[in-house]
C-alpha cells in the first residue's frame, strides 16, 4: 500500500466518531496522569488496559497509545512547577524548567514544552509514516556491542550534565550505576544487594527512586519556607506564555536537533525516552556557545529534551509495528493489548492490518493536536493550582506520590523506597550532590552491564567487537569526541595562556 492510500485509510479510520472519542479519552487521561506525580504512563496504561478488553481493537490501541504520548505532555508540568519528576525524562526537563519556574517564567516554560512536544512528535510521526520498515531493519542491525556503545555515549553525556563540583556529579553517576545493580542478575539469576528482601528482586522502581530523590527531598527542603514555591504570577495572560521573537529563534534549532535525536533513539528497542532526553540535552549543552546558562533556566535546556522525548515515544512504535518487537515497557504492554484483541504484531502487521496501522498513525496526529489544544488552556490552571499555600499543597502531593508508586505493582514496599530515597535526597541536597546523575546512572547501569556481558558472551570474550563493528565504532568515536570536547577547551586555554593576552580560564 502506498503512502497516499495509507493516508486515506488511516484518516477514514481515525476520523470516525468513536475513534475520535477514544483518542480524546486517551490523551486526556494521559495528560492528567502525566501531571499527577508518581503515576507514569506505564502504570496508567497497565491499569486502563483491562477496561479496553471489550473495545474494538483499533479503538483500544488508539486510546492506550493516547495515554502513552499524552503522559509525555503532562509529565513536564509537575517537573517544571514542583521539581517533581516521575521519570528520567522529566528529571532532565527539571534541570532548566524548575529554575525557570522559580524565576516566574513557568507559563512560558510549559508553553514551550507543549509546542515542542507537538513538533517533536510530528517529526517522528512523519518518519514512522514514511520509513518505518526501513528504520526497523536498521534497528535490527543493533546487537549487544552497538547497544553498549550507545549506552556508553549516554554515560559520558550524563557525567557532564549538571553544574557544580565534577567529583560530586561523577560520584553520583557511579552511585546511580550501582543502584541499578540491585536486583536479579540477568546472566545468572543471582540476587544482588537485595538483603533478603524479596521485593528488591526486580531492583528499585525508577518511579520510587525519582519521586524520593527529587519530589520528597524537594518537599522537605521547601517546608517551613514562608513564601509559596511558585512565584505567584497573578493573572496569567497569553503574553506570559508566548515566547518573544528572540526566544522563538533560540528554540528552533534545539527543537529540530532534539526531534532528530529522539526519533533515532526511540526507534532502538530497549532505550527509551530517558536516554533520548539525556542525549538531546547533553548535545545542546555541548554545542552551545554559552553552556554556563544551562541549569539556570536556559530555554534550549527544555526545548531539546522535550522535543526528543516526544519524538522517541512516537518512533518507539516503529519496531513494534513493523517487526513486532516492542521498544520499551510501555509499548510492550500495548503489544500485549493487541495480542489480547487477537492481533499478533509481527513483520506482516502493516500488510495484514493496514486499517489498524494507518489508523493508529493518523490518530497520533489527531491526538497530538488535541493535546496541544487541551494543554495550552490548562497551563494557567496548573500554575494557579500549584501556587496554593505550600502547607496545604505538600500533604496532597505526598498522598499522590504514595498512591502513585503503589499503583505500579500494588505493593506498599515502594512507598518505603520513596521514603528512603527522600531522606537520602535531602542529605544529598544539603551537601550539594546533584540527583539527576543518580537517576541517569540508574537507568544506564543495568543496560551497560547487560549489553557488555552479552557482547562478551556472543563474541566468546573478544573485546575488539566494540571497535570492529562499524556502528559500534561510530558511537565509540562519538564518546571520545564528546570527552575531548569537554577536556580540550581547558587544554587549549592552557596552551593559549603561554601567549600574552590569552583568554582567561573558566
Amino acid at each position, binding site marked *: 500500500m502506498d503512502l497516499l492510500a495509507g493516508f486515506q485509510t488511516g484518516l477514514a479510520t481515525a476520523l470516525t466518531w468513536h475513534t475520535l472519542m477514544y483518542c480524546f479519552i486517551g490523551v486526556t487521561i494521559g495528560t492528567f496522569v502525566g501531571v499527577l506525580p508518581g503515576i507514569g504512563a506505564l502504570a496508567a496504561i497497565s491499569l486502563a488496559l483491562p477496561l479496553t478488553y471489550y473495545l474494538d481493537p483499533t479503538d483500544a490501541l488508539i486510546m492506550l497509545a493516547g495515554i502513552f504520548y499524552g503522559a509525555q505532555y503532562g509529565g513536564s508540568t509537575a517537573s517544571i512547577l514542583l521539581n517533581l519528576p516521575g521519570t528520567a525524562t522529566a528529571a532532565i526537563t527539571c534541570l532548566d524548567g524548575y529554575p525557570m519556574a522559580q524565576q516566574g517564567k513557568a507559563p512560558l516554560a510549559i508553553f514551550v514544552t507543549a509546542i515542542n512536544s507537538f513538533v517533536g512528535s510530528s517529526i517522528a510521526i512523519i518518519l514512522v509514516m514514511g520509513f518505518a520498515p526501513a528504520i526497523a531493519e536498521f534497528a535490527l542491525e*543493533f546487537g549487544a556491542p552497538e547497544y553498549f556503545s550507545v549506552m556508553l555515549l549516554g554515560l559520558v553525556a550524563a557525567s557532564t550534565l549538571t553544574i557544580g563540583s565534577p567529583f560530586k556529579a561523577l560520584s553520583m553517576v557511579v552511585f546511580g550505576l550501582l543502584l541499578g545493580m540491585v536486583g536479579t542478575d540477568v546472566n545468572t539469576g543471582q540476587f544482588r544487594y537485595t538483603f*533478603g528482601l*524479596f521485593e528488591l528482586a526486580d531492583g528499585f522502581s525508577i518511579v520510587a527512586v525519582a519521586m524520593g530523590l527529587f519530589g520528597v527531598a524537594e518537599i522537605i527542603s521547601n517546608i517551613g519556607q514562608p513564601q509559596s514555591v511558585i512565584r505567584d504570577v497573578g493573572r496569567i495572560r497569553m503574553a506570559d506564555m508566548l515566547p518573544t521573537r528572540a526566544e522563538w529563534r533560540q528554540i528552533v534549532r534545539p527543537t529540530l536537533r532534539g526531534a532528530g535525536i529522539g526519533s533515532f533513539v526511540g526507534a532502538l528497542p530497549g532505550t527509551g525516552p530517558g536516554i533520548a532526553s539525556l542525549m538531546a540535552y547533553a548535545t545542546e549543552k555541548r554545542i552551545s556557545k554559552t553552556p554556563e546558562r544551562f541549569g539556570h533556566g536556559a530555554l534550549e535546556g527544555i526545548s531539546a529534551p522535550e522535543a526528543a522525548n516526544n519524538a522517541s515515544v512516537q518512533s518507539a512504535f516503529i519496531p513494534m509495528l513493523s*517487526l513486532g518487537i516492542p521498544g520499551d515497557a510501555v509499548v510492550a504492554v500495548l503489544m500485549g493489548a493487541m495480542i489480547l484483541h487477537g492481533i*499478533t*504484531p509481527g513483520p506482516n502487521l502493516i500488510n495484514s492490518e493496514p486499517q489498524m496501522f494507518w489508523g493508529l498513525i493518523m490518530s497520533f496526529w489527531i491526538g497530538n493536536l488535541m493535546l496541544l489544544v487541551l494543554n495550552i488552556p490548562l497551563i494557567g490552571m496548573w500554575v494557579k493550582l500549584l501556587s496554593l499555600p505550600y502547607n496545604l499543597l505538600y500533604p496532597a502531593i505526598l498522598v499522590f506520590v504514595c498512591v502513585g508508586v503503589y499503583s505500579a*505493582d500494588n505493593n506498599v514496599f515502594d512507598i518505603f523506597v520513596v521514603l528512603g530515597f527522600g531522606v537520602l535526597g535531602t542529605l544529598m541536597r544539603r551537601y550539594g550532590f546533584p540527583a539527576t546523575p543518580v537517576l541517569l546512572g540508574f537507568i544506564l547501569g543495568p543496560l551497560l552491564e547487560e549489553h557488555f556481558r*552479552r557482547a562478551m558472551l556472543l563474541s566468546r570474550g573478544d573485546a575488539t567487537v566494540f571497535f570492529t563493528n562499524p556502528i559500534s565504532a561510530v558511537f565509540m568515536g562519538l564518546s571520545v569526541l564528546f570527552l575531548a570536547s569537554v577536556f580540550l577547551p581547558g587544554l587549549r586555554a592552557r596552551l593559549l595562556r603561554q601567549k600574552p593576552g590569552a583568554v582567561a580560564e573558566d
Partner: protein
Amino acid sequence: MFRRSFLAASAAALAAALASPLAAQSYPEGPITIVVPFPPGGSTDLLARKLGESISAQLGQPVVVENRGGAGGTVGANYVAKSDADGYTLLMGVTGSNAISAALRDDLPYNPVTDFDPVSIVISSPLALVVNAESDFTSVQDVLDYAAANPETFTHGTPGVGTSMHMAGELFGLESETKLLHVPYTGSAAALQDLLGGRIDAMFGDILVTSEYIASGRLKALGVTGTQEHFLLEGVPTIAEAGLDGYAAFSWQGLFAPAGTPPEALDALYGAVSEALGGEEMQAIFRERGFLVEGMTPTDSKAFIASEVEKWTEVVNAAGLKQ
C-alpha cells in the same frame, strides 16, 4: 465421569486432612480475588480475566483480578501463599512461579508444593525451537549433531534465567548430552531481535509469537517441544520425533489457593473451572493463543506440580544453575 470420581476422591482426601469442614459451608459468600503475578496484558492476565468472568457467573459472586507483578511471578505467588486460606484469594500461577523457582532458589519465601492447594492446572502450551530463516540448521538432528561436535557454541536466547524457555533449552542439553550456550535477555522481544538479526542461533519460543515470523518467512521452526504436532505449526515435528527421544517441555498455567483452603471451596472452584473450559468463548481463545486445555483435578494438579518441581530440580542441578 473419570473426572468426577477424581474430584470426589480429592474432596474426601482433603476433608479428611482438614479438621475444619465448617469453615466455608456456603462458599462463596463474597467477592473472590484472583492474583495475577504479572502486569496486565500478558496471557496469564487474559486467562485469569476470562476464567474469572465465567467463575463469577457460575458462583454468583464478583471475581476481581489483581495484578501483583514482580520477580518472574514470585512476588504475587508469595502474596497468595501468605494470604488467608479461605478460598477468597487465589493465584493464577505459572511454570516459573509454581515450579521452576523452587528448583532454582533456596531462598524462595514460599514452597510451591506445600504452600498451595491447586484448584486446577488449566492450560499448557508447548514451545517451538526456531532458528533464523537463513540459518544452515534445517532440522533438530542438525542441531544435535552440531551441538555434539561443538560444545557451548550453539547459542539459544531466552527471556531470562529460570523461564520455561530457558528450562526447555537446558532440558534439551541434558537429554541430548550436549552443551548449548545459554544467552539470557530481559524479555523475549530482545531475544527475538537478536534472533532476527542473526546474532544468536536459536530460541525456544512462544508458539503464537513465533508463528507470525514463520508465516512471514523470517524464522523457521525445527520442532515443537510438545508430545504432538501443534495446530498453529502444522507439519512441524515434535523434537522427540525429530531425533531427541522422550523430550517434552511445556509451560502451563493454573489456579491455586493457599494451602489449607476448605475442600468445599476447592470443589466449588474446580467445578466452575471445568465448566468454564468447555465454554465456546474459552475454546476460541485457546485456539487463538495456541493453548492446550488441561483442566486437571485438584489431586492431579497437586501430583503434577510435585513432578514438575522434581523434573526441573534435576535439570537445574545438572546445569549448575542453583542459586
